[in-house]
C-alpha cells in the first residue's frame, strides 16, 4: 500500500514538473500551430538567467521568477515580431519554415550561452535544496514541492486567462479557426504576438524552476523538449488542464513501471515515446476531446 502511495506522490510531483515545462509549448502550438524547437533553448536560457540572478544578486530562484516571467514575455514578443511574423506564411499556419527557423534560433541561443557562461556544468544550491519533508509517509524534496506549487500557480493562472479574459477568449478563437476569428474582428496578429510572449514566459519560468532541480549546461533542454511533445499531444489543443492530465499520465506510467515491474529503468524514455505514438494513433485529437466525446455520448444516450 505504501508503495502505491509513494508512486502516486512521486508521479504527482514529476507531473507538476513535466506540465510546467509543457505549458509554453502548448500555448504556442495551440494558437500558432508552430512546433517551437527553440523551447528547449528558452528553457536553458531561463535556467541561466535564474542562475545569474542567484549568483550575482543572491536572489532566491523562486522569487526571481517574478523578474523572469515578464522579462521572457518581452523576449517572446520581440522574437515574434522580429522573426516569426516575418515568415512568408505569416506564422499562422503550420509550416516547416517556422520549425526550422526556431531550430536556428535554438542554435543561436546555445552559442550565446556558451559564449557568456561557458560549457561548465552549473547548478544552484540554496539552503533548502537538499531538505525534504514527509508527505503521506513519503519523503519529498523541498524544491520538488516548491516546483509543484509553482506549477499549480501557472496552471491556475493560465486557466484564468484562457477561460475568463478577453485575451483568452480571443486565443481560443484563433486556436479553433484562425480565419473565422479574424472575420469576427480578432486581431490574430496581435494575439499571436501575445501568445508567443506567454509561451516564452512560461518556458523561461519553467527553465528557472528546472534550475533548482538539475545541473545544466548550454546543451540542456533537449530531453525535456521531447517529453513535452508527448504531453501536448496527449493534451489536445484547447485544454490547459489537458496538459496537466497528460503530464500526470506520463508520470504515473513511468513511476509505476519503475515500481511494479522489472523493466530496466533505462527504458523509461522509450515508454514515453511509445505512449506518444499510441496516444496519437488512438486519440488524434488529444485526450480531453476523446473524454468529452465519451461523456457527451453517454449524455445523449440518456
Amino acid at each position, binding site marked *: 500500500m505504501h508503495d502505491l502511495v509513494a508512486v502516486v506522490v512521486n508521479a504527482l510531483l514529476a507531473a507538476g514538473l513535466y506540465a510546467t515545462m509543457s505549458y509554453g509549448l502548448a500555448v504556442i502550438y495551440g494558437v500558432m500551430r508552430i512546433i517551437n524547437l527553440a523551447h528547449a533553448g528558452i528553457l536553458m536560457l531561463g535556467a541561466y538567467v535564474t542562475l545569474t540572478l542567484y549568483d550575482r544578486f543572491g536572489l532566491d530562484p523562486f522569487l526571481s521568477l517574478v523578474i523572469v516571467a515578464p522579462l521572457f514575455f518581452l523576449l517572446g514578443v520581440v522574437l515574434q515580431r522580429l522573426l516569426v511574423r516575418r515568415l512568408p506564411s505569416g506564422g499562422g499556419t503550420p509550416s516547416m519554415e517556422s520549425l526550422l527557423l526556431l531550430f536556428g534560433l535554438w542554435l543561436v541561443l546555445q552559442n550565446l550561452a556558451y559564449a557568456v557562461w561557458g*560549457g561548465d*556544468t552549473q547548478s544552484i544550491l540554496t539552503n533548502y535544496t*537538499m531538505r*525534504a519533508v514527509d508527505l503521506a509517509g513519503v519523503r519529498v524534496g523541498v524544491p520538488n514541492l516548491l516546483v509543484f506549487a509553482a506549477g499549480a500557480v501557472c496552471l491556475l493562472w493560465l486557466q484564468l486567462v484562457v477561460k475568463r479574459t478577453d485575451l483568452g477568449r480571443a486565443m481560443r478563437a484563433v486556436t479553433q479557426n484562425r480565419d473565422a476569428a479574424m472575420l469576427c474582428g480578432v486581431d490574430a496578429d496581435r494575439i499571436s504576438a501575445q501568445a508567443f510572449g506567454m509561451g516564452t514566459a512560461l518556458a523561461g519560468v519553467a527553465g528557472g524552476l528546472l534550475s533548482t532541480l*538539475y545541473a545544466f*549546461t548550454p546543451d540542456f533542454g533537449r530531453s525535456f523538449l521531447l517529453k513535452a511533445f508527448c504531453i501536448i499531444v496527449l493534451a489536445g489543443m484547447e485544454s490547459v488542464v489537458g496538459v496537466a492530465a497528460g503530464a500526470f499520465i506520463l508520470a504515473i506510467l513511468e513511476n509505476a513501471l519503475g*515500481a511494479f515491474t522489472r523493466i*530496466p529503468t533505462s527504458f523509461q524514455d522509450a515508454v514515453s515515446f511509445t505512449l506518444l505514438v499510441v496516444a496519437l494513433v488512438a486519440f488524434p485529437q488529444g485526450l480531453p476531446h476523446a473524454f468529452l466525446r465519451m461523456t457527451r455520448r453517454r449524455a445523449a444516450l440518456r
Partner: protein
Amino acid sequence: MPSKPKSVSAPLLLAALCAFSGASPAGGAPEDQTIRIGAVLPVTGKESKIGSAYKQATEFAIREINDGGGIDLGARKFKVDLTLLDDTSDPAKSAQLVEQLITQKVHAVIGGYGSQLVQAQSVMPERYGVPFLAGGAGARSIYGRSKWVFGTLSPVDVLASTQMDFLDALVGAGRLRKPVKIALVTENTEHGKDYAQGVQDFIRAHPGEFVVALEESFELYTPDFKPLLSRVAGARADVLMADAHLEDYIAMHRAYTQMGLYHQMVTYGARGADAAARKALGSATDYVFASGWWSDLLPYPQVKAFNARWKSATGSDPQWYHATAYETVRALAAAIHKAGGLSPDAIRNGLATVELKDSILPGGVLKFSASGQAILPFVVTQNKPGDKVDIVWPKESKTGEAVGPIPRS
C-alpha cells in the same frame, strides 16, 4: 522547372569543390618547419563540459612546450602547431574531422573525450597509418585493435576493481560485515558497462565476501531518479556503487538525499570530489568516495608543481580531466622527442616505448601497455566534512583515514 540549374550543376559542382579544397596543403612540405598535431574534441554538445576542459588543458600544455622552445628532435627544437577542432559530440563528425586532419598531413593526432567518440575516431589512424593518442577514453575495446592507437586513461574496470580492493580492506578491518550487499547502478554507456564488469569480476574472484543485491542501468540525463532509487531502497543493500556522469551524479544524489536513503558506503564511480558537485550538493557529498584517474592531492612534487602552474595560469584548481589532458600532450611530446624524427613509424615506436618518469598520474610513471592503453593504478578519494578531500587508498598515497561505515546523520 528544375532542369535549368541542373544542366550547369556538374561542372559547377566540381569547380566549387576544387576552389574550396584546393586550399588544403597538397602534401607534406618537403622541409617540415613545425610539428603539426591535430586534435578533435567535443567542445560543444553532450560532452562539452569535459570536452572544453580538455581543450583548455591541451592548449595549456602546448603553450608550455612552445614557451620552452618546442620539442627537441636532436638537430634543433621544433615548435608545435596545434589544430584543435570541435566535433559537437557527434561520433560520425568526429571521425570525419580526424580523417580530414590526417589528409591535411598532421604528424600525430590527439584523440577526443568519450568512448563513443574515440571509438569512432580510432578507425582513422588505422586506415591511414598515423599515430593517435587518446587522452579521454578508458574503454578497453578501443585498444589492441591497431598498433597506431594509444590511450592515456586506464581501463574503467580497473577503476572498479580498485574500489573493490578498498572495500575489501574495510571488510578485512572489520568495518564492513560480509557478505556485503551491493546495489550496482550504472549509466548505460561503455564506461558504465566496464565499471559493472569490473565489480562483478572482483566479486567472482573473492567468493563469499560480496553479493550484488541489485544491478540496474539508467540513461544519461535521466530526469527523474525516483523510480530507480525506489528500487535501490527496496534492495536494502549495504553499499551503493553507482557510475554516472556529473549531471546524473548531482541529480541522483539530490534525490537520494531527499529520499533519506542511507548506505554504509556510497560511490559514484569517478565522480565525487568534483568541484561542481560540491557546489551543487554541499554537505550531502560528505563521505562519498570516488576513484579517479588523478587527484590534486597526490603526494608527488611534480603534482604540486603542476597545481601551482595551473592555478597561476587559470586562477582555479586543476580537476582530474585537466591533468589527464595535460599529461597526454606531454606523453606525445616525449614520444616524438624519443623518436627523434617525424615519420609515422618513428613516432609510433616512440609512443610504444616512451616512459614518462615524472608523470603526474598515479604511480608516477606513464607508459603504454602492449595494447596501447596505459594501465596505471587508481587512487580512491573520500570527501570529508568541511569541503575537505582525502586520498584513502592505496596506503602508500594516503593523506587521511577512510571513514566507513558512513555515520548516520
